[in-house]
């Protein structure tokens, strides 16, 4: 379903391209040996290279190259065996060298694609324009002193991947799905932790609008450094509306860079095209062109994990899951693995229902994460086994699960301790059935007159009398035989 914004003059569609800065998972920086851990004391993870001291030279960190190639492969992209680092020159207090080492003409990764999983279960392919490696800048802190700014260079030189999409996205929702999916892939690959709060994944959105049916690309505005998926969506929505208002009142949109104010939910001009920096890109003479061997790429390729799209397809084929369930389960590798552990050797649909239902609910209820789940996959599997072998009824199983969440104990232990075993002894069940029939002659008569729906009420009475432990199937069968005959 196309996302259409209605204006006074007609219908409009949004054209969105996203630039994501993803911090590369690596122990040391892109061009220096300094550490990269988040949250360290200011200026404790800085080498002379990162601080731009005289005579210091950059040396490429091979791990970062490997991570970029891995990410490129994960995005089904063209890997450029020769790429070039260029200097992007500008002055700022947290940019010690006076330039950022980035890639310009020849990025390490070229065109690729990313598949969006839409809410209706269908998919849509979005083009990736490029991925390049670059250095992060330091951080300016303006609120520590009345007249001075403080600079923390811990981030200076940390490796970033800038991942640029083609202008293929058409709605804030799609932008959100794109970011979610990209983050999922990066996490599967182990190339970026995708943590937007800590700034290890940041997004710039390029937004323009055009009348529905038109194929032109109108002037875009770039909204810089938005740090949550929800804010990206809000920023796009606001910006698109602003463009439509400007066009419909006869104005023109000027190309500019804007900032998103998450408190006021609006974008504001940061600098116009005329004020834009002239970055004077040129190949960094301190670094030779980066040449990688096809073998190096092939080695990374052979070690790639199964990625979300492939996993989803497999879950649908192998386990018979629907697209939605499969999509939810594969979004994070850890939940997909959890599901597969539960489903192994068991009925996959039952496993899926338990994981998607009670288990995910227990995550929300307890506030725990997949890394430290309230119930392990092995225990959940054991619980399903107890249903299968008749030890527990479905209803009893839900009670046991609640106790598992509460106590962390294995289901068999709980069943044993609480005596929650399902009763399958015919004599015991028959006694309870007979008692229920004897106590309710009027209802027995109604059933015999044809109100068979009342049989369910009898089942409830028997289950109540046995504290839920009677095997419901046996109860139903016996009631039906005794009353209906």
């Amino acid at each position: 379903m196309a996302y259409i914004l209605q204006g006074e003059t007609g219908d409009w569609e949004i054209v969105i391209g996203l630039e994501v800065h993803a911090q590369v998972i690596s122990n040391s920086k892109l061009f220096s040996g300094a550490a990269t851990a988040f949250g360290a004391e200011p200026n404790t993870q800085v080498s002379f290279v990162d601080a731009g001291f005289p005579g210091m030279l950059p040396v490429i960190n091979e791990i970062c190259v490997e991570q970029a190639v891995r990410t490129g492969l994960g995005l089904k992209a063209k890997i450029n065996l020769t790429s070039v680092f260029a200097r992007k020159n500008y002055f700022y207090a947290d940019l010690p060298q006076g330039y950022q080492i980035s890639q310009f003409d020849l990025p390490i990764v070229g065109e690729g694609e990313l598949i969006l999983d839409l809410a209706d279960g269908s998919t849509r392919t979005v083009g990736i324009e490029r991925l390049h490696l670059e250095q992060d800048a330091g951080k300016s802190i303006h609120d520590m002193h009345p007249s001075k700014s403080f600079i923390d260079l811990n981030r200076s030189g940390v490796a970033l991947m800038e991942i640029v999409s083609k202008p293929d996205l058409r709605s804030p929702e799609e932008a959100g799905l794109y970011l979610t999916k990209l983050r999922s892939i990066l996490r599967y690959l182990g190339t970026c932790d995708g943590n937007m709060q800590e700034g290890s994944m940041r997004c710039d959105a390029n937004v323009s609008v055009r009348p529905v049916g038109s194929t032109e690309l109108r002037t875009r505005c770039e909204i810089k450094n938005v740090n949550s998926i929800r804010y990206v969506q809000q920023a796009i929505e606001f910006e698109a509306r602003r463009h439509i208002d400007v066009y419909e009142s006869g104005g023109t949109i000027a190309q500019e860079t804007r900032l998103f104010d998450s408190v006021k939910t609006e974008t504001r001009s940061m600098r116009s095209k005329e004020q834009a920096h002239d970055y004077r890109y040129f190949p960094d003479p301190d670094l030779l062109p980066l040449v990688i061997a096809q073998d190096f790429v092939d080695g990374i390729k052979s070690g790639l994990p199964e990625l979300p799209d492939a996993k989803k397809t497999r879950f649908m084929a192998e386990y018979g899951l629907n697209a939605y369930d499969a999509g939810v389960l594969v979004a994070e590798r850890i939940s997909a693995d959890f599901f597969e552990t539960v489903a192994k050797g068991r009925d996959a649909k039952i496993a899926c229902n338990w994981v998607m239902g009670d288990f995910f609910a227990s995550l929300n209820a307890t506030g725990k994460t997949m890394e430290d789940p309230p119930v392990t996959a092995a225990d959940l599997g054991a619980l399903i086994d107890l249903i299968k072998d008749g030890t527990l009824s479905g209803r009893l199983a839900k009670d046991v699960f609640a106790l598992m969440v509460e106590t962390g104990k294995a289901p068999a232990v709980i069943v044993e301790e609480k005596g929650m075993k399902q009763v399958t002894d015919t004599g015991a069940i028959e006694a309870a059935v007979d008692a229920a029939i004897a106590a309710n002659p009027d209802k027995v008569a109604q059933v015999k007159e044809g109100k068979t729906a009342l049989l369910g009420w009898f089942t409830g009475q028997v289950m109540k009398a046995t504290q839920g432990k009677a095997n419901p199937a046996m109860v139903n069968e016996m009631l039906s035989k005794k009353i209906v005959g």
Partner: protein
Amino acid sequence: MTNLTNLTMAEARDKLAKGEFTAVELTAAHIKAVEAKRGLNAFITETPDLALAEAKESDLRRQAGKAGSMDGLPIGIKDLFCTKGVQTTAASHILEGFKPQYESTVSGKLKSAGAISLGKLNLDEFAMGSSNQTSYFGAVENPWKKKSDPKAKLVPGGSSGGSAAAVAARMVMAATGTDTGGSIRQPAAFCGITGIKPTYGRCSRWGVVAFASSLDQAGPMARTVRDCAIMLGSMAGFDPKDSTSVDMAVPDFEKSLTGDIRGLKVGIPKEYRPDGLSDEVAKVWDRGIEWLKAAGATPVEISLPHTKYALATYYIIAPAECSSNLARYDGLRFGLRVPGKTLDDMYRKTRAEGFGAEVRRRILIGTYVLSAGYYDAYYAKAQKVRRLIAEDFRKAFESVDVILTPTAPSAAFGQGEGTDDPVTMWLNDVFTIPTSMAGLPGLSLPAGLSSDGLPLGLQLIGRPFDEETVFKVAGVMEAAADFTAKPEGV
């Protein structure tokens, strides 16, 4: 003891080994010479106490049988090399007082070889200049004098002018230089000494204040070819900290001085004999060709057709890189800071006060040629021409083993001459720049005196990483030239 300062490094090395004198004695004699010749302004920072302490250690090492290849030999370090705990200025106000907490790879290797540094030598500011008159710490004077006007102060060439003057004046036995477009070779020629810019990538640039990264290369400056060979052996080598340094074994350069150049082909590029080349320079060049013939080599006329574009190309590429390399001098973390009302104001004031006119001129040119709309017309085109220049040399070296040219178009000139026209000043490097653009090794050695009594140099250019052939031919020429003239007062 004054005769100690007249020894070559090879001689001093052997005499130290024989115990004829100690490193302390040798160092003390040179410290005295440094004090006596202070008027030349060759040093920015003298470190006599450190030097004597190091000399004592050197003598102890020798006693213990652990002497290195340059142990106990007093040298000077161009003040472009970062030296741990010793002020490093690049001859700029903007770095005045900067004491690095690290040692450049090259100066560190020389230290490891046992060489003793007497201090930091003057240069053109950020190595930008050909006469050592752009230094914030004052011009360097050439120890040589014109016969016609012995009172006139002459320039030592640049940018390694302090290095050349100190070696020529016997203040140090040798010195490090750096060469971006001729900064080792032209001052070596002006001061009557020998200097080699090795192949780009031979010596690490780590810890050397950058001017133009794709051209900068460190090299030795000394009084003989052999001394340069000894010293280059201690400076060169792969450094994983410099991505442009080349992982190749360093040969024993001294061994290449066999004296036998029979059968070698020596290229004589016709483009290096432009109209208006001074007769004296042309004569020295012709004499050089005769020496090589006499030693059994064959001169071959060659063509390097893109030579005429080299200077213009250089003055696009070098400033472009410098405009970016010098952005880090922003008053924030080290060196000079002139306070301002805003960050931009502080930048402007600091850089306006901290950089001299020539440095500012090159930053402006470099910023311009990299700007949007001009990049293709200047920088991108210059890179293409640079490849053509390198290709000229590659083709020439298919038929010759080494190339012989003059080093500079003239002998040393007077202080104050040519400073009002930067382009005239830039012409000093017209014969050295093409070699730099192609990344090739180039050596200058003294080949004779002008009619006015000033040294004139010849340049030998070799194939990439073939410094050995260059040294071999230079050794033969040195013997033939028998250059025994010395500057005044030595």
